[in-house]
């Protein structure tokens, strides 16, 4: 029982981490109809910039690395991500107005290549660490009820909290504000949005900047878990079943999807895995998402796919 609970909690925690990455995808998709394959690259890039500046800034200023250094590095990175967003809009998106989703998807893959080359070239390709003081050791709950207690990772718990806050904030932004509405309009029809005076350029810079900020949060959390290095860009892959399960256009969907995938994945690996030789969680996550999609092709909370004649 304790083990089941641990697995469940573990799954939930991992799920929120996935959700956090998924939010990045959803954000950009919802606001511009672009499926941003460069999200992983952005995570890596932001983590890299952050890690390096967190190391450099104290050196330059001649102070101890710590909270202030980290905060300054985060600010610098945020500025960096805005610049990236601006450059992406300027050099790519602007010229791809009104193109099909798959073309845009490919363009983001191109951007991913660019970032993957640019980041390590400028900031180095060794392993760097981010230390923002996330607790690394577990705590044990209910030790009286179960032998050995139920273990919870504080780090994951914190990450989960951050994810929840971000989703709440972003959801409100999308549903309630004028800009939110405009963003959804852009996703539906670039040209019509332009024709009624929505400044695509500005909107895109905003959205990509926000996505960059989300990427930074993800980068810091995962980076402090995994170390900052190329593989960090692969965590984005883990979020893909989450986005389709939750629905490409739904922020709460990202959270629920994340939780379902997280839990499903862990339970399946722990309980079914041993029967078939293990290592099933990756495809199991996709299989799970697929099953849901067969019932709801637009994901759990996604906008209905419209076909009308």
């Amino acid at each position, binding site marked *: 029982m304790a*083990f089941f609970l*641990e*697995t469940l909690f*573990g*799954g939930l*925690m*991992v799920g929120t981490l996935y959700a956090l990455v998924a939010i990045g995808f959803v954000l950009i998709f919802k606001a511009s109809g672009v499926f941003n394959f460069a999200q992983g690259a952005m995570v890596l890039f932001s983590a890299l910039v952050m890690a390096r500046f967190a190391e450099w800034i104290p050196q330059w200023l001649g102070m101890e690395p710590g909270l202030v250094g980290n905060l300054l590095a985060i600010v610098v990175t945020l500025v960096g991500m805005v610049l990236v967003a601006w450059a992406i809009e300027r050099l790519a998106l602007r010229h791809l107005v009104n193109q099909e989703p798959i073309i845009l998807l490919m363009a983001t893959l191109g951007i991913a290549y660019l970032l993957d080359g640019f980041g*390590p070239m400028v900031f180095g*390709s*060794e*392993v*760097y*660490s981010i230390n923002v003081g996330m607790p*690394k*050791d*577990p705590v044990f709950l209910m030790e009286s009820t179960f032998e050995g207690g139920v*273990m919870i*990772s504080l*780090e*994951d718990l914190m990450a989960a909290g951050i994810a929840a806050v971000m989703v709440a904030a972003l959801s409100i932004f999308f549903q309630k504000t004028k800009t939110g509405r405009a963003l959804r309009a852009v996703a539906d029809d670039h040209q019509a949005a332009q024709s009624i005076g929505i400044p695509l350029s500005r909107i895109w810079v905003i959205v990509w900047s926000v996505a960059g900020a989300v990427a930074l949060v993800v980068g810091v959390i*995962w980076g402090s*878990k*995994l*170390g900052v*290095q*190329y*593989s*960090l860009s*692969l*965590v984005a892959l*883990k979020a893909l079943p989450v986005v389709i399960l939750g629905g490409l256009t739904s922020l709460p969907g990202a959270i629920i999807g994340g939780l379902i995938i997280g839990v499903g*994945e*862990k339970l399946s*690996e*722990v309980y079914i*895995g*041993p029967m078939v*030789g*293990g*290592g099933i*969680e*990756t495809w199991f996550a996709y299989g799970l998402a697929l099953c849901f999609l067969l019932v709801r092709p637009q994901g759990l909370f996604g906008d209905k796919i419209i076909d009308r004649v």
Partner: protein
Amino acid sequence: QAQEQFMPLLVYRTGQFAPMGIPWADGKQDYLKLVNAKGGVNGVKITFEECETAYDTGKGVECYERMKNRPNGTASFDTQSTGITFAVSDKAPGDKATIVTTGYGLSQSADGRVFEWNFPLLGNYWTAADSMIQDILKKEKGSLKGKKIALVYHDSPFGKEPMPLLEKRAAKEGFELLKLPVTAPGVEQKSTWLQIRQQRPDYVLLWSAGVMTPTSIREAQATAYPRDKIYGIWWAGSETDVQDIGAGAKGYNTVTIQNTAEFDKVHDEIKTMLYDKGQGTARDVKGTRSIAYTRGVMIAMLQVESIRTAQEKFGKGKTMTPEQVRWGLENLNLTQERLNELGFGKILRPIQTSCENHMGTDWSRIAQWDGAKFNVVSDWYQADKSMVDPLVKEYGERYAKEKNIQIRDCK
């Protein structure tokens, strides 16, 4: 006109394994520079060229094709990748290309009768696994009856290599072997470590690479699994794998090929003859103080020595053909004196290869992370020949049958 010998350098300085690939590549290049700085191999300068594979088999094959037939004798390939090794092993005999796979590749390729062109010098995954078990046996005072050992492995042929040996050992020592695969790249291992928490194995053998290693150690920390009960394979035992976990990884053990956690005279030479003159490959001399770097240096040394050996037979001061280099590798004989002379006295034990035995030697030691650096903590272990040799023979012969390879007669 001075003769030259070409050494192809397949490396990965980018991609997911870059953190270990960079010092490895630096080590290889630095040693060749050092040899040249000392006048080459009997006056033959080593020319070299790096080709980036990013650990991608396709790219690796392209590099191999590009470099295999250089006019001034392509020496031998250290492909740095199991996948590339698989892909080129079949081509090698036809191309007359020699493949050196120190500590990786196919374990059974130690059988020189079947694998004429492959040289898994110094050890393979079976010898590594065997050394780990020996160390554990020592800690457990000689008996593993009723113990549980988990193998947490990268879900790929690489990760599965040690299984035959471990199964054999488990049968012999009476411990239970638990196999837990981790899907590549290994950024998410919660379920694996939950299972470990549930099963409570006494030891964990970690057959990992790249990001999987730090993730495993972090998960071990997060599930409060004692790090000093974890043994990593040598590819999981670089400073880059643990240094940013720091104290959290304290106690983590890794098996080293021979004794690559040691620093020796060769490091000093590299410092004085290259880095002090600004000719080093790594960013600075600190980059030479790592296990992966030393391993690169060591591999390059073996490749160079094989050229030297070949020259002894086919003519000093001449460019060797690939076949001649292969002969050199097959007749390598580095005594302790020779190793001391080369500056590898502490790092390596004497090595002698032969037609049947392409591995040469199979010693290794265990190093432990103390929170800041790796320290060698065990004595030398030699793999148990009664365990490893039959496996090499069995798998080698099976391979020969699968691929229709004529087994050489070494008599």
